[in-house]
């Protein structure tokens, strides 16, 4: 079990997080952005569980459950928002939603 060093997990997590972050910054489709956010969250989850197994501590794993639960709630709210925005604007291009421009 301890054949894979923790550094790989962290590296993988960093790669996943970077992909997620770039997805959030670059893509204009809110659905894709949501998926990228999920990617970032799960990148963080990966680090939690990796270190949890290294330090033999449950708190990291418990934290992951919370993150999963919050992510699910977030997705529920976010998708509802997207549906409502689409109803109002017939468009969900994120760059067109700029009515708060200063």
């Amino acid at each position, binding site marked *: 079990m301890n054949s894979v060093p923790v550094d790989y997990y962290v590296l993988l997590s960093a790669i996943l997080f970077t992909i997620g972050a770039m997805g959030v910054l*670059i893509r204009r489709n809110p659905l894709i952005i949501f998926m990228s956010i999920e990617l970032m969250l799960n990148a963080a989850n990966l680090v939690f569980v990796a270190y949890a197994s290294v330090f033999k501590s449950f708190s990291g794993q418990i934290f992951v459950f919370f993150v999963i639960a919050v992510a699910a709630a977030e997705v529920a709210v976010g998708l509802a928002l997207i549906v409502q925005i689409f109803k109002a604007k017939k468009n969900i291009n994120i760059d067109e939603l700029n009515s*708060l421009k*200063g």
Partner: protein
Amino acid sequence: MHLSESVSTGFFFLAPWLVFAPITGLLINAIFGKYFSEKVVGTVASLASGAAFVVSVLLAYSVSLNHGEVVRWQFAEWIHVGTLQLDWTFRMDSLSTTMMLVVSGVGTLIHIYAIGYMHEDVRFKHEEGRFTRFFIFLNLFIAAMMILVSGDSYMMLFVGWEGVGLCSFLLIGFWYEFDTLGRSSWANSNAAKKAFITNRVGDFGFLIAGFLMFWYLGSFQFDEVFKAAPAIAESAPWVIVAITLFMLVGVAGKSAQIPLYIWLPDAMAGPTPVSALIHAATMVTAGVYLVTRSAAIYTLVPQAQYIVAMVGAGTALFAATIAVGQYDIKKVLAYSTISQLGFMVAAVGMGAYVAGMFHLITHAFFKALLFLSAGSVILGLERGHHAHAHHAAHDDHGKGKKKEEKNHGHEEEHGEVFDPGDMRNMGGLRKTMPVTFWLYMIGTLALAGIFPFAGFWSKDEILLDASLHFPSVYWQLTIAAFFTAFYMGRQIWMVFFGEARSDAAKHAEESPKVMTVPLMVLAVLSVVGGALNLPFEGFHNLGHWLGHTIGEVEGLPLNLQVAGISTALALLAILISWFLYGRNPLKAGQIDPLKKPLGFVFTGMENKWFVDEGYFAVIINPFKKISAFLADVIDWRFWHDFVHDTVILGTYNWLSEIALNKYADQKGIDAFANWLGTATQSVSATLRKLQNGFVRSYALSVLLGVVLILGYLIFK
């Protein structure tokens, strides 16, 4: 209340009633007077004054029982500060009781007379409500005068001194809204002010004398001052000279001596009983009383005595010459009063205190008589004037009485104002007013010093003393006596003889009994008053009596030469006056027969030697100029225009406009507030560009922020 000395036989405990009897009368009239008829008011006032007279008699009797011993009756403590011990103490000795008798006796007679006089006076002036006020003032005067003569210290005397001054002021200005002819004017109130202010100059002298006395002699109490004075007179005689001379200034003010006599003739603006009581018989003699009271000090400094005598003699002569040129019946008597006061002051100045006091008493009798008779004459003319005016109005229109009154008033407003006091309007009154005529004759003979009237004895005693010690005073007084007889003769011929020179004089009516009876009492006193101090062995009663207080003086026997000269001169003067005014009585509108032969001298007499004008030129006009200068230049232009308007207001305006408004406010506070606004605007203009509306750029910012913070945390 307790007796400070062991003598107690007699009625000394009554002493406070000297003051409180008139005060009681005053209060009754002041509070209930409006419910009383004139008769009740007059009776209350006369009884109050009469009660003071009764007390005076009892006190004098008690003093005589005690052989003239001084008795003090302490009534109240007044001021006790350090070594200053002032009490309200009544002093009963032969001198003070003599003054009390004169004041309350003559005062009571004048109160009674005034009931009749004021009854008509207030009606001629259409001010009937003022009747009560007159008697309140008269009672107040009696009270103040009693404080003056009964005081045991110079300060208590000064209280009375000021009190009578106040009453004098109030009564001169009694008809304050009129002039002496009843026209509306401030002449009477100006006369009152003149009297008050002139007296103030004299009071200043009195006060300085009082302060010096306290500083160097350590007391105000008479006996203590007299005890301390001789030692000071040895070591520092100038102190006593200064005290006596400053006191003389006070005397000159109150007793109308040169140079402060000018108020007395104007004081005739008061109703005639006032002229008689205050400005002839009693108040003006306060100065004579003061010098007599201070005899112990004056005898220490012959120089001061000499000055007092010269002032008195000068006044006697000077005023007598002015009286010759006067036309107003009361003005003649006023100058005569000044002249007679000069006799008294000269007498007490020479050290002839008994003679001075003797003349004071007889003068009170005959001058009160003369003034009151003059009042009777004036009212008689006034009655004649009104009766005649009514008569004429009746003939012309035959309308109701009220209407006549009105017409009459109009006539007075527009036409020539009738002066009932002008002797040129009189003449022939001996037929229409016989009682007054005989009373006036008695007064005149007494004043002129004709044997055996009271004035003869008292004046002669003064002249005799003067002839022995002060020849210059003697000659001045003798000439003054000559003038006295002359102007009184002139007055008698002008007023009572010849033909009436006006309708009013033709229709003049005799005065009622309430006025003539007191006059008869005074006339009797004017005839027999000389018996008080006859210059024969064993008859110097007043001398012995006063001797208890001011030291025994040798009673001088009658000197036939002095008496002969003065009587001869008086008779000669009356003869000359008959020659000028009696033989060819004055016609209406004719100028005075003295005017031609005397020329400018008579003009001077007529115009009172231009003394009033002189005072105006020397004191009053410069004073007005200085006050105008102070008011206009110093106060208005300098303080108001320059200091207030220019300096203070200007500085304030400059400060608020330039410094505060322009700089502090506009450029400081305003500018800061504006800068805050513009700065916020520009900052936000920059910052709003960040709010570009692209969610992804916000996300990038968040990411960069997280990276930066994490980087900082990792690499710190």
